[in-house]
């Protein structure tokens, strides 16, 4: 899937840059975007190390197991076959970090969760149901206070910068419910097939 999408993106880019006479911008853009990618990782590396370190403490001390046992009943609807404490804890941490607007930390927990789900996956080249559900939730997770947007709004002189909080949560919930439903429908369809 990714092979085709990615190849397509680059080829479309080349074709359009020639049609629009933007080949110079295209070349510059590609060069600067690689640098941006490296800078992004460098900015992420510090937090990544800190969270991986802290989560390791939580794992070794047994905190993860404890938390995971507490939330297991809550997420059994979404992940009926998930038994591994560490995976459950990482997924929960990722959701919590998302909800509380700690975007970079959320990315790190999610990547850890995906690594663990990958190890548990009996058919490694096909995404498991749990992976799909986790992805669907990650792609639609709500954020309690979208701080960046509120900041932009108040900078631009909005009379009520925080008025978008409630609509954002409602819109986010709608998106989340629909994503979960789509996942569940596919899961059921595959089971019958």
């Amino acid at each position, binding site marked *: 899937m990714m092979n085709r999408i990615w190849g397509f993106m680059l080829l479309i880019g080349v074709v359009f840059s020639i049609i629009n006479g933007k080949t110079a911008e295209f070349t510059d853009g590609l060069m600067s975007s690689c640098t941006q990618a490296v800078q992004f990782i460098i900015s992420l590396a510090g937090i990544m190390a800190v969270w991986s370190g802290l989560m390791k403490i939580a794992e070794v001390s047994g905190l993860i197991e404890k938390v995971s046992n507490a939330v297991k009943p809550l997420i059994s609807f979404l992940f009926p076959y998930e038994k591994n404490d560490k995976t459950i804890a990482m997924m929960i941490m990722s959701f919590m970090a998302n909800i509380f607007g700690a975007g970079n930390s959320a990315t790190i927990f999610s990547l850890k969760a995906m690594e663990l789900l990958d190890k548990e996956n009996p058919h490694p080249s096909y995404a498991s149901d749990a992976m799909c559900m986790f992805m669907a939730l990650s792609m639609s997770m709500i954020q309690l206070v979208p701080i960046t947007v509120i900041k932009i709004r108040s900078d631009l002189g909005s009379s009520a910068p925080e008025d978008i909080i409630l609509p954002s949560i409602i819109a*986010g919930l709608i998106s989340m419910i629909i994503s979960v439903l789509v996942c569940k429908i596919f899961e059921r369809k595959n089971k019958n097939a």
Partner: protein
Amino acid sequence: MPNLLSIFSVMFLPILITIIILYGIKKKTDIYDVFIEGAKEGLHTCIDILPFIIGIFIGIEALTSSGAMDFIEKAAAPVFNFFAIPEELISLIFLRPVSGSGSLVVAERIMEISGPDSLVGRAASVMVGSCETIFYVLALYFGVTSVKKMRHSFTAGLIGYIAGIFASVYICKIL
């Protein structure tokens, strides 16, 4: 209400750190040694995902710098008109799935032109607040796995995203 929510958001990380450290001490874990060990693993993960990030970044850049994105937006305009979604939002709707920072810039520009309290400005804010960078997430998260077929995760994410877009606009129209 917003203030209470803000306090929760600001306090989330400090509280979490306190709990982890205190629990570690209580269970007599060698917290510093274990922290270093975990941090090392974290840095390895960073290096592992760097190639995927570079791949995603240049793919997106290819679409935006070549003007292909502008073309797609223009071509899709009638569809958005049909659903009564304001034209000003189209570029945000297309950019949001692939780029978090890029879509913030676009949202800011939309609010500058239309005003942050206009329908368009509010809808743009709600979109950024509720819709995720789905393609970016898909490419990055599956990057650390050995998965070749994404199965229904793509469809679920896309349908959820579209639902979020519609919800953002219509909720702002009602409220």
